[in-house]
């Protein structure tokens, strides 16, 4: 019996679970316009996983990266949820660098 994949699967579920508060708190404090930065952090984590020789650590860092990339695609919908009153709305969000450029891009949603 090889338990590596099963344990990795459960660990992945726990890391993806971290994505929920990450998106909720991230949108509330910073706003959905930070999505390119969140996506970039995720991509950097995934690239970093390529250079980690320990399999367990490489997988955990890779999945953490995937969680950030997925979270970046959820920020826009979370912003709408907060505007609808389903989550607390914060009017004083921290604006992202290059906000005016990011506003011209269509935020991803899958």
């Amino acid at each position, binding site marked *: 019996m090889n338990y590596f994949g099963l344990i990795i699967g459960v660990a992945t579920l726990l890391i993806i679970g971290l994505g929920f508060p990450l998106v909720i708190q991230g949108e509330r404090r910073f706003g959905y316009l930070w999505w390119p930065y969140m996506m970039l952090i995720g991509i950097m984590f995934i690239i970093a996983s390529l250079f980690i020789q320990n399999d367990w650590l490489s997988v955990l860092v890779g999945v953490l990266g995937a969680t950030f990339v997925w979270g970046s695609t959820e920020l826009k919908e979370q912003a709408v949820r907060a505007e609808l009153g389903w989550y607390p*709305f914060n009017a004083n969000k921290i604006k992202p660098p290059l906000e005016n450029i990011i506003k011209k891009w269509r935020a991803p949603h899958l």
Partner: protein
Amino acid sequence: MYRDQGRGISMNFIGMVAALTAFFSVWFGHVAVRKIESISPTIWIPTIIFTALGILTEYFVLITDHWLLNTALGILGITLLFDALEFTRQQNRIKKGHAPANPDNPRHAKILTEYPSATTIDLLEREPVGYPSTMIH
């Protein structure tokens, strides 16, 4: 045990495989649960199918020694098991009006009559406006 002759010397692809599997499994589950819950007359049938698929996938994980296949299937199987739970969570979203009900589905039609908050409108199908706006659909 988890390595094979295809593995590079300086690069470890197991994290990349895990990341891609996690991302696409979550994406598939996200779309599939919403679609299937919307058209299925019951939620217990898809719940049982996804649970069985998840258990079957994890069984293959336990008997597979290929390091990349083991990782990818391990993540996919657990995602399928979580999707099985998501059918109930999605139905609760329909009851609260947080996801659109399908009036052509008898189960959803019943929810629409029993839960005043249920709606056929997808309230999330719009761009953010930057202020609280319950009236904008």
